[in-house]
Structure formats: C-alpha cells, structure tokens
C-alpha cells in the first residue's frame, strides 16, 4: 500500500459554519431524506475529506443520495442554508476536485449505480452517475459494444466523475475524450431545478449546455442521469510492443505514425525505470534493458489492421526499433495491457511515495519535453518514471520519493511546477484528463489571460450565481490571477 503525502487545504472562501447551524442543517437534511442517508459522525466526515489527490478539506455532512429527487432535495436545503455542496463519485480524482470546502455538504452518488436502459441498435445507454466505468462495458459486452473512455482507474471510477472531469484514457486517441461519448445529462442545477441538457437527438436546439456541463468539475450542478454513446467492439485487434534504445526514437515514432495517416486505438509509452518496475511486479518478459517501449494497439477490420501493422513496423524500422513483440492471443494482449495499467502499483517497490502529473504537449514536442523532464528530475535529485498516453501527447511523469527524507517534499513541489511550465511553454496544456480542481487552479494563468478567465467565470455565474456548487475550484480568485507563484496553501502541483 502506498502512503502519499497528505496536506490540509485551507485557502477556502467559505468559513466553517457555526456549530448550531450545522446541527440545524443536518436536522433539515434528515427531514428531506431518510435519516440513515445523512451522516455526520467524525469518522465518516474524515472519510470524505479528500479524493485521490494530496489535498483535503472538511465537510459538515455527507448525504448518500439514491434518486434525482434526493439530489434536488439536498440542493434545495443547501440553498436554504447558503451552504456549498460537492458531488462525489468514487473519489478517484487526482486534482482535488471532490475535496469539500469547509462546512460543505458532500453528495455521494455511489448508491445511484443502476444502468437504466440500453439501446443496442442505436448504441446508447442511460446510466446513473455512480455506475462504474468498467462495469458498463462489462455489462454490455454481450451486445458487442463498450463505453470507450477508459481511464486507468476504470475499475473504480464512476461515470458521473468521468463526466465531471471529461476524463480520458488510453483509448481516447482514436475515440475521443468523454465529452464525445455523452449525448445528454439530466442535472440538478445549482438553484435546485432539474433539466436535461443535450438529448438523444443529435442537434437539440440552443447552446450546447451538455458540452459545457461535461468537464465542469461539479461547478455547474450535479448529474443524476447520463445518456452515453456505446461503441462497437472491433472485430480484429493487434497489440504490439516495440522497444527502443533511446526515448527520442520511440517518441518520434509516435508522430511518424500519426503523420502517416494511421490513428491506432492506443499508443502508450513506458520508459526504462517503469519497464523495470513493472517487470519485477508482473513478469511479462518486458524489454528491461531498453530505454523505452511503445505499446501500440490497432483495431478494426482485418485487412485494415494488417496493413496498419505492416506500415507501423516499417516506420519503426526507420526509428531503429529493437525488439518487436506482437501479442499472439488474447492472453498475451491482456498481459501487455496489465503491464501498462499496473505501473502505479509497481512503483511502490522503488519508493514509498509518488506524485503523478498530467500535462499535454503537441506530439512533435514529446522528445524534447521528455528530455527536459529528466533534466528537471536530475536537478532536483528525484527519480522520475514516465508512463503515458504518447499518442495524445498526454504526459504522466511520476515523481517517486520517500517523504520521510528531509526537504524532499519541497523538491517534488518545485520539480512538478517546472514540469507544468515546460509543458505549457511547449505549446501544451495544463491537464489532459485529471482536470484543474484545486491542484492546478492557480496555474490557470499560465494558459489563460485575465480576459480568458473572466469569460469562464461568466459561464460559471450563469449556471451558479450563488456560487454554491463546488466553489473555489478551477478558477483562480482575481487576487491570484496573473500571479502564478501563489499556490494554495498545501496544494501540490
């Protein structure tokens, strides 16, 4: 089990409500829900202090909602008491998006976990927000379809959380991020009204409210039903592991493949330290002596797959590919993917603590940005492993360390800050799939001007004029705007 550094997050606008107010609030919530749905014991409040990030807050009360009516009732009470609320799925977010502001109501959607309907002909389904990502694909497998967004946490993350963060995953390279797989969302808006944004019909009139709700990190209301697109399972799959003696050769091949007009289903990269850690963990016969390996998956109809594989191997030769391993069957394919997806478990063997970053750079900048990341880690005397969605240019540098070592946390902090900066300077973005949350809130000025941020704040105000829905996330307060040094106390970047 990996212990990670925990810090309190205190830079919140909302002050802890008076104890008497909390008592009234809890009593009122127990009158609109069943009493057992409303929990306020210290131990339960502690459980909901944080998500999977290093940040934490403190809620006043946790509500386990079971229906749209429940969510609406809780949000009406929140408005009555002018108390902020935060929806929470599985709590796997890495950017502090589900960390409760002091005194907030946490709305846990884990009990809203039903698949409501599946239309196998038109390939769509209505689900509740607490349905786990992988469960939907498993439950619809017999119909020959799956839910394409596949975050690495897909066994435990919820679809409501995927919608809130517009989550990605390895297979978003060909199929797009979560937004492209959401037809409609039933939401309880921050003022307590219920509406369906978007629709099963392809061009609902008016603004694309569905599109702006996806990725709004819980700040535009709470999703209570989600209409998702299901994707046909491919008839043929080829999974290749290609290894290289330099990271640059592997990284350049990624651009070569895309420029050639091939969009593999996924292109993932693991560097040497990662390969070694994973190999010790799962014994898959990975090329541990090589600088990097690419896991490439091509899907489709048989002739197209065969021709893409042949072309990729031809391009790989030009980048001095070392070993080429083509998964011979489903078992070997599963083993190679297990290697990729178990990387985070494997690194516990190196150091007890880690900090996972998430930035995106244009694909052609991968070789030099990776080189800069190694240089940054060296300079701060830290170990960095790279395991990431190379096809999307979506970097996930993992800084591993031992928090008991004096001064190391400051070095991790400084190195992380530099990694974000070099990514944005290379023409990239702050986050590819984890979101902004609290973690990167005050780094937003690296990418956006005050005018740009004001437009985002306008949209937020239109949805939530009272600013009760997951306040203080994503948008830096005007005082910190333009001052990227001002990181919230305790926040890790």
């Amino acid at each position, binding site marked *: 089990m990996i212990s990670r550094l925990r810090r309190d997050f205190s830079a919140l606008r909302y002050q802890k409500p008076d104890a008497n107010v909390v008592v009234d609030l809890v009593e009122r919530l127990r009158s609109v829900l069943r009493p057992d749905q409303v929990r306020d014991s210290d131990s339960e409040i502690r459980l909901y202090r944080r998500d999977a990030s290093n940040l934490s807050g403190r809620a006043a009360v946790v509500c386990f909602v079971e229906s749209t009516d429940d969510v609406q009732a809780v949000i009406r009470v929140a408005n009555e008491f002018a108390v902020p609320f935060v929806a929470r799925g599985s709590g796997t977010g890495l950017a502090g998006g589900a960390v409760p502001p002091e005194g907030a109501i946490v709305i846990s959607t884990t009990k809203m976990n039903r698949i409501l309907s599946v239309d196998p002909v038109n390939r769509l389904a209505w689900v509740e927000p607490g349905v786990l990502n992988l469960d939907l694909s498993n439950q619809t497998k017999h119909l020959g379809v799956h839910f394409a967004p596949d975050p690495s946490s897909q066994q435990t993350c919820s679809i409501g959380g995927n919608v809130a963060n517009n989550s990605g995953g390895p297979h978003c390279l060909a199929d797009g991020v979560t937004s492209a797989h959401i037809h409609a969302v039933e939401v309880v808006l921050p003022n307590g009204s219920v509406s369906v944004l978007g629709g099963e019909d392809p061009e609902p009139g008016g603004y694309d409210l569905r599109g702006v709700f996806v990725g709004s990190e819980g700040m535009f209301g709470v999703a209570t039903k989600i209409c998702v697109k299901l994707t046909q399972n491919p008839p043929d799959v080829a999974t290749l592991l290609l290894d290289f003696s330099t990271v640059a050769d592997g990284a350049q091949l990624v651009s070569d493949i895309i*420029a050639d007009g091939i969009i593999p289903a996924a292109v993932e990269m693991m560097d040497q330290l990662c390969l070694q850690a994973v190999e010790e963990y799962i014994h898959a016969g990975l090329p541990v002596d090589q600088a990097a390996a690419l896991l490439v998956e091509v899907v489709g109809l048989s*002739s197209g797959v065969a021709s893409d594989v042949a072309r990729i191997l031809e391009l790989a030769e030009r980048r001095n590919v070392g070993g080429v391993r083509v998964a011979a069957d489903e078992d070997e394919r599963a083993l190679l993917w297990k290697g990729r997806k178990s990387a985070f478990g494997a690194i516990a063997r190196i150091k007890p603590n880690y900090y996972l970053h998430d930035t995106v750079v244009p694909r052609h900048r991968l070789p030099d940005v990776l080189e800069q990341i190694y240089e940054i880690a060296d300079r701060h005397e830290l170990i960095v492993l790279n395991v990431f969605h190379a096809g999307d240019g979506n970097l996930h540098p993992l800084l591993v360390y031992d928090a008991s070592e004096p001064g190391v946390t400051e070095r991790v902090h400084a190195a992380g800050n530099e990694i974000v900066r070099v990514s944005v300077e290379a023409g990239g973005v702050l986050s590819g799939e984890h979101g902004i949350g609290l973690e990167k809130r005050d780094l937003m000025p690296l990418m956006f001007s005050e005018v740009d941020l004001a437009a985002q704040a306008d949209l937020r105000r239109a949805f939530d004029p009272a600013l009760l829905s997951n306040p203080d996330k994503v948008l830096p307060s005007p005082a910190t705007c333009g001052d990227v040094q001002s990181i919230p106390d305790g926040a890790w970047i």
Partner: protein
Amino acid sequence: MPAASINLDEAAKAFADEVGSEGEVAVRGLGTRGGSVEGVRTVLAPQGIEWVQAAEMTVRCGAATPVDDVDAELEQYGQCVAVPSGGTIGGALAVGRSGIRRLGHGPIRDSLLQAYFISAKGEVVKAGGPTVKNVSGFDLCRLLVGSRGTLGFLSDVILRTRPRGDSEQWFVSERDPWELLSELYRPTSLLWDGRSSWVLLEGHADDIRAQAHSSQLEEASGPPKLPTEARWSVAPSELPSLRVAAPGTFVAEIGVGIVHHSHEASRSRPDAAVADLTRRIKSEFDPVGRFNPGVAALRFSG
C-alpha cells in the same frame, strides 16, 4: 507546414477593433447558411490558413476561411475536417450542423479544439487549447459551436483533422437499414428514404469489398439527393416511425437522428430551465444584446 499566409494573432486584434465595444453588430460570411442579420453593421472575420500540422492532426485558420479552401489544403496531407462543405468555417461552427458523415466522423462540435473570439466588450478571448486532450478549465469551445454568433464572434480556430480513408465507396441496398446498422462495422454514413438504404464505407479496399459482399450491398455513385426544405433532429430510436411516411419525402440519417425532410417538423416547447440558462448565459456574455441582434439562440426543431 505551409508558409503562413496570415498572422492570426495580429488579425484577431484588428478584428476586435472592427467589432468595437459599442453598438449592434452582426458577423457575415458567404451567406450559405442563412446570411447575416439585416439592417445592422456587419463585420468579416479574418480569412486564411496559418498552418497545418499534419503530425498533430490540427489546422489553424481564420473564421472567414471557406470550408472548401481548408479541405483543399488538408487534402495535400491526406486529411480532412468533420465540417460540412460550403460557406465559411466560422459559419459552419456558429450554426453547428454536422454533415452526413456524422455517424462515422462524429459531430462538428467535437472538431473545435481552440478558438479566439471577440467578446461583446471588444476583447480577444481564448477558449480551449491546441491539443485534442485538454481539460484545462470550462469548455467554452463547446459553448461557441452552435451559438449562432450570439455570445462572441469567432476570429480564428484550431480544428482537429482526421485522416481521409484509404478508400471510400457509397453503396445502395433494399435491405432494412437497422439490420445494416447492426451488422456493418462503423459505417461512415447510413441513409434511408423509406425504400432504399445508402451506405458509405471507408477504410482498406479489401475490407470495404468484404463488408459489401457479406451485406449484399451494390455500388452507388453517391448519396441520394437530400430534401432541403426542413431538417429534423429526433432520437435515432424514433426514426422507425418514418416507416409510415411517404417514401421519397425524406432522407433519414440512421443511427444519428437527422431527417432531411420536405415538411417542417412540429416544434417542441423549450424546457423552462434550459430557456432560463440560455437567457442567463446570453446576458453574461452580451448583456446589452450587441451581437447578431434578433438571432434566437434557442431554436428548437424535431
């Protein structure tokens, strides 16, 4: 990457000056999607392609650039954009209607990665970012697509491109379109007029032949002629109700839900919460109603 014909950062500043911060103003394009608002000062967004980055699968162009110019430029790289042909890129995005390849290529709304737009205050505002994967802040790009120029005027955009298929072929069949939807692997388009089904397949030529053979498809020269009088948007599960409609009066996009029809659909009533949100968004972005006055953001069909 071709030599830049235009500096779009500079052009955005000039466009912002032209839009200004006061008075009613409408944006014009080539007039192919309804034309601009009459009786109001009009402005034209920057025009030209600044770059194509084939390995990134992105293109940056001014909003007034003709779709067909972008398509011709991208053809040199074996790529295309999911934007229906004709008119300008900005016009297509502002209207937000996808083409008949939506089933395979996805909707136009997913093609916009980054936009610079001019706000009602006359400022240049950036939305989104240059990479496909990007969850940095609220998704203003999705808000702009289909907003009919009521919130801001697009100055320039970065669009996601996609590879053109190695081969493509239209087919026709008398078979039931829903059977075809079930058995074909990711067709690019599947159209039905109540009698016949038209299918567009893209990819490796051998795969196209094999699919056509096993589903008994016959080669066709192209899609059917689409009625242009009306465009319905209905849930794809409702399309079978068209079985009772007179064949030839419509062409439906199976699996999508667009119906190109010779008669107007009855209009549904806007949801009160959606109407309220729409008003609030308009009022935040354009409080005095400068932009495209008279254009209703909330136009329901279906």
